């Protein structure tokens, strides 16, 4: 029901809205910090937003190793999978 493609679409939408990023810059390999100019405080806003969308509890630790847009999608997929398994 939550395909990786759907999640990718949602992450892109959140990034575009939250940080007014041009959609063409939001690609899976884009580094949040260096390519998209997102800082550690922005990352908290991003995590809060993802929490709302997924309806899951999101721990900042789960995002510690996130560097790229692709990593964000993978982390969200992971969250959804955990929930399904539980």
């Amino acid at each position: 029901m939550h395909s990786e493609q759907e999640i990718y679409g949602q992450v892109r939408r959140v990034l575009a809205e939250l940080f007014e990023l041009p959609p063409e810059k939001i690609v899976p390999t884009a580094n949040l910090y260096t390519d998209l100019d997102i800082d550690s405080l922005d990352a908290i806003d991003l995590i809060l937003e993802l929490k709302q969308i997924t309806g899951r509890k999101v721990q900042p630790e789960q995002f510690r190793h996130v560097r790229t847009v692709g990593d964000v999608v993978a982390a969200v997929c992971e969250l959804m999978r955990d929930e399904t398994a539980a």
Partner: protein
Amino acid sequence: MGTHWRGMLDRGSRRFGTGLSFVVFGVGGTLLSVTLFPFLRLISPNGAVAQRRIGAAMRRVMGLFIWFMKSLGLLTYELHGLERLARSGQLIVANHPTLIDVVFMVWLTPEAGCVVKRALWRNPALRWPVIWAGYIPNTEGVQLVQDCSRVLESGRSLLVFPEGTRTVPGQPLALKRGAAQVALASGADVLPVTIVCDPPFLTKGSHWYQVPPRRPHFTITVGQPIPRERYGAGVQSHPLVARELTAHLATYFTRNIDAVLNERRDPAHESARDSVRTPIM
């Protein structure tokens, strides 16, 4: 002896004076850190009283140091709008062209915390005075924003250099978003202070002995406060407000620096004083 030679002599003595000032600052600061400041801490009944006394002592010491440099003929200065620094609980943001901006600002600002280099916390002499004075180490991210907000919420003002380090000469101002994040988190008014040093002196990447051909003149102008309700009105997301406020401050500083420099080149130019009167948001 022509004016050329006099200029050279003047420059040589300013080089000597600058070196002397560095020694005086280093030795004096270390001595005070093991004498006056611990003494003030010891005779104070609690941390809050000690913080006020040590803060007041630091302001005097910084004022004395500026007086010393001025007396040696190393610099001149003019100050505008200082009365606006007196209100408490403001987030005071200044641009950072020279090594001694913090000396000026600590001297001029009554009762304020200050974000300073975290390396000072590893300095055996200076570590305790900065802790007692309630200063904040320039850590990063959430930690820094929380520390700063706590100071502002306690009603104290806080002095921050949003560039994080000195301006790189010849490059556009690069402001970090931390200051704007603090403003948003605390809801404090933002008070911009424009510092201009002309000709450039003690800039980033230069050595202390590279004194400019003419004696440097500091123009420090305190602008109008930007109240919380003025920034980010109608903007949806928190990150966007932080970006907007940061961009506004960068434009504000750049415009004011140019205005002051223009006025100095051509005294008929009166835009400098006018532009700081104009609210930026």
